């Protein structure tokens, strides 16, 4: 089952015929009471000819995604997503159920985002040589959401790993390597060790202790624990490869969460992804 087929399988049975309209899609959006829409090149468009989604349809999507075993995905549902074999990720939105003041799950789904991963081998060709010239140094990949940070991260991990670097990958949402039954669904290289389905802040420490990496890779630094994990890794002499949401380095530096990383000069390089006319452009910048 390829990535798109995996995503189409999650749709209600009478909508699977629309697979052609989904070719090249980054995400399929299903919202109760609205017709499904598709996200391509950062632009969301309604899929023509499909009926409105019902809340039962959304429950059915979650049932298919978990193989009628929602209870097995409860820990990730608490974080608002479910990983599906093949690397497809289901983002969930609805009425949050609280237990002891903390989110315990989501009841009455109101919308679902089916995110379709893309493996673009070769997408890092233009920046790989400059990044590794003189030895790979800690690098941050920056872009707004939906521009392909995870895709570029995966490709850089693969290239570095195949070049003989021991890479440890914190894949908390299972999007980078999409490990299923112990095996990565995406090619992340021959020297890559993957720790999935747990917070980066915790798994990075485990990987540093257990796997002796030369490079630690993590997708999306979003929490203070992630920042601390990044600093600890660099403190251990490990190079870091990470992604973060920002429009560019200037925008990144203004975010309070990231200020400490910049002040401590954790990253030596930044790669900014920009989209113009449906195409992605990668810009490398040495950070001072």
């Amino acid at each position, binding site marked *: 089952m390829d990535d798109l087929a995996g995503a189409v399988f999650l749709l209600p049975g009478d909508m699977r015929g629309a697979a052609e309209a989904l070719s090249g899609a980054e995400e399929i959006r299903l919202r109760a009471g609205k017709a499904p829409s598709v996200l391509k090149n950062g632009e969301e468009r309604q899929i023509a000819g499909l009926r409105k989604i019902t809340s039962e349809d959304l429950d059915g999507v979650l049932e298919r995604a978990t193989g*009628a075993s*929602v209870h097995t995905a409860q820990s990730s549902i608490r974080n608002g997503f479910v990983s599906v074999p093949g690397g497809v990720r289901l983002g969930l939105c609805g009425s949050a159920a609280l237990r002891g003041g903390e989110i315990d799950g989501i009841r009455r789904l109101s919308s679902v985002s089916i995110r379709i991963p893309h493996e673009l081998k070769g997408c890092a060709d233009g920046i790989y040589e400059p990044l590794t010239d003189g030895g790979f140094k800690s690098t941050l990949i920056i872009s707004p959401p939906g521009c392909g940070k995870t895709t570029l991260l995966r490709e850089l991990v693969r290239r570095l790993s195949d070049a003989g670097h021991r890479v440890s990958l914190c894949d908390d949402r299972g999007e980078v390597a999409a490990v299923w039954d112990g095996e990565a669904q995406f090619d992340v290289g021959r020297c890559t060790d993957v720790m999935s389905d747990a917070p980066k802040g915790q798994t990075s420490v485990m990987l540093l202790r257990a796997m002796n990496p030369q490079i630690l890779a993590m997708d999306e630094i979003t929490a203070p624990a992630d920042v601390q994990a990044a600093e600890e890794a660099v403190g251990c002499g490990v190079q870091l490869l990470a992604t973060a949401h920002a429009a560019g380095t200037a925008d990144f530096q203004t975010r309070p969460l990231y200020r400490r990383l910049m002040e401590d000069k954790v990253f030596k390089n930044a790669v900014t992804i920009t989209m113009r006319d449906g195409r992605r452009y990668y810009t490398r910048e040495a950070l001072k």
Partner: protein
Amino acid sequence: MRLFGAMLIFIACSAAGALRAAALWKKVKTLSAVEGMLRILSGEICGRLSDIKTALGVLKRSSPPETADFIGALCGRSGEIGEMPFSRLWSECAAQTLGVLGADELSELCALGTVLGRYDAPTQKAAMENCAEYFRRAHAQALPRVSGSMKAAFGAGASLGLIIMITLI
């Protein structure tokens, strides 16, 4: 010849009564088996957090014989999970293989299918415990009645056969 025919009718009526008594006994055993099956399923899903296919595999190995056909049918159709809502699979297999149960009992079991695999473990556990309790009570109520009913069914069959036999002779 008349005597031989009358005896055959007596035997047939007695056998019909015995079959009815056996069916009653089977129903009682099935009520208990469904309760046992639900306890195992609850342990797998809510205790070990097994996915539904794994839980069905465990049930197939450990379920009482009275529910073996039901579990066998579910396992046989487990490839349809995703294509078809699990609740529908559950209901169809129950209707096909647990016909010995009454309409209310089947309805209770089918209602459980709408919860299985769809909600978090505590919600499923509560639903399975309620359903298991329903079947435990149904079994407890049916058990004292069943021996009387079995005797009555067998006795009625034999009596009817005897009356016809006497009439014919």
